[in-house]
């Protein structure tokens, strides 16, 4: 089944509460996807710096002294913030690709969850409540965020297979459904030089959007493209540095509900994920139309 939640804040005064609201929404969706959970959160960015979120199954070893060795490899200032199995590396801007190669050499078992000016992704196997606790998602602030509770259908129950997927700078995607042409599309995108690391169908969806945007599409145009080029069932909720988008396939058999007020735009697989949001009683609540793209920008 899978559960998706998303929250895009218009009202800056809610930003300190983003993690708290997102956690409630995520936990409510546990029975749609109890095998793993993840969130992408867009926090404050620092001018001239880039954030790379990494994950390791043996964090003590992998993160020990990582800031020092990476600083040396990049000849720049690097700081590290360790949160359970994840760590956020803060690097000089423009060093993302160099950091990817250096990390592959310095810590071969480590996975890169996301990279960009403001995005951080945290995801693990386990009940959504436990996953949110491990990373103290409640304490996080930001301008928008996306969460997912997974019931695996197309690939294994692993951290690698959990959502959100990030295949481009400050981009992420969560998905409810299953894609049927992901193998063919993965081969095509890889030939185009797009980085895809897992066997998961959703990662191909994310990579498709990245590829479209790298080739000049706006987020809206890239989302329109999914209706032509992706086969299968999908509700996609995507994040970019300053945007938030939603698209459903033409058959639209996966549930979705949206709400908008002056303060926020919210997405949930079910209405009950939205019931504790402020002012939901008076919000505009609707079911997104099939084959229709919705997006918002800051």
């Amino acid at each position, binding site marked *: 089944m899978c559960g998706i939640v998303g929250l895009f804040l218009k009202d800056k005064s809610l930003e300190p509460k983003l993690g708290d609201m997102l956690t409630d929404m995520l936990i409510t969706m546990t029975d749609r996807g109890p095998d793993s959970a993840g969130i992408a959160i867009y926090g404050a960015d620092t001018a001239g710096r880039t954030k790379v979120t990494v994950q390791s199954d043996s964090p003590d070893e992998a993160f020990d002294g990582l800031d020092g060795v990476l600083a040396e490899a990049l000849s720049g200032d690097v700081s590290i913030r360790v949160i359970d199995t994840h760590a956020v590396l803060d690097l000089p801007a423009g060093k993302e690709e160099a950091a990817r190669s250096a990390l592959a050499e310095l810590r071969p078992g480590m996975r890169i969850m996301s990279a960009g000016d403001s995005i951080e992704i945290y995801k693990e196997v386990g009940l959504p409540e436990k996953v949110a606790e491990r990373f103290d998602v409640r304490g996080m602030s930001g301008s928008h965020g996306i969460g997912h509770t997974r019931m695996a259908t197309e690939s294994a129950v692993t951290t690698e297979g959990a959502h959100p997927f990030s295949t481009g700078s400050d981009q992420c995607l969560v998905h409810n459904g299953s894609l049927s042409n992901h193998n063919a599309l993965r081969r095509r995108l890889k030939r185009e030089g797009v980085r895809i690391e897992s066997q998961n169908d959703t990662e191909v969806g994310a990579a498709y959007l990245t590829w479209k945007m790298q080739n000049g599409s706006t987020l809206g145009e890239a989302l329109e493209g999914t209706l032509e080029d992706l086969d299968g069932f999908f509700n996609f909720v995507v994040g970019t540095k300053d945007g938030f988008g939603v698209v459903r396939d033409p058959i*639209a*058999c996966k*549930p979705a*509900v949206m709400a908008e007020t002056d303060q926020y735009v919210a997405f949930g697989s079910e*209405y*009950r994920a939205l*019931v504790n949001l402020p002012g939901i009683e008076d919000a505009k*609540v609707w079911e997104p139309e*099939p084959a229709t793209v919705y997006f918002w920008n800051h």
Partner: protein
Amino acid sequence: MQTYDLEANGLRGLNSALQELNGSSNKTAWEIVNPKGSHAIAVGLNSPVEVTVKGSTGYYCAGMNQQATVKVEGSVGPGVAENMMSGTVIVDGDASQYAGATGQGGLLVIKGNASSRCGISMKGIDIVVHGNIGHMCAFMGQAGNLVVLGDAGDALGDSCYEARFFVRGSVKSLGADCIEKEMRPEHIEILKDLLARAGADAKPEEFKRYGSARQLYNFDVDNAQAY
């Protein structure tokens, strides 16, 4: 009037209390507060009780209803009044997918819009939607009436049998074997009654009728040699 706080007292207690009212109790009017989008509220009711839900519900509200009147003062998730046998279900807001699916009797009224697959495989239920409906509505509809005051989405009545569809607005497309049909006096009568019972402010003459061309499901004896 009995008031039941769903958040405080739980779903199982609510449904067993309502299902036990088999006509022997005078506790016939119930109000459910704090539904908060919960699933399976007021399902399997089998006596003429009146239940009002004060807020929006999740999946399968008022499913398998018999005799009861369930009113939702909010919107409903997928599968409202699924397989209803009799009674009445009224939704003030919108309904998500497959509202009234496989319903065998009774009246479902949706005052807002219904999304895709409303009345799919309907088998005798009457459904009145004051707003619009989405795609694939009444797919394989066998009996009953689907009345839409607004517009219908793609593939209305695909592969339908003898269900009748009355649409006041536009129809994006008709499904396989579904055609527009003549509105005869008996249809005006059916529609007049349904609109009145659903509290709908519309004139029967404003509607067009659609239904099966009966080309898809009939065994044609002239083709017997081909089988």
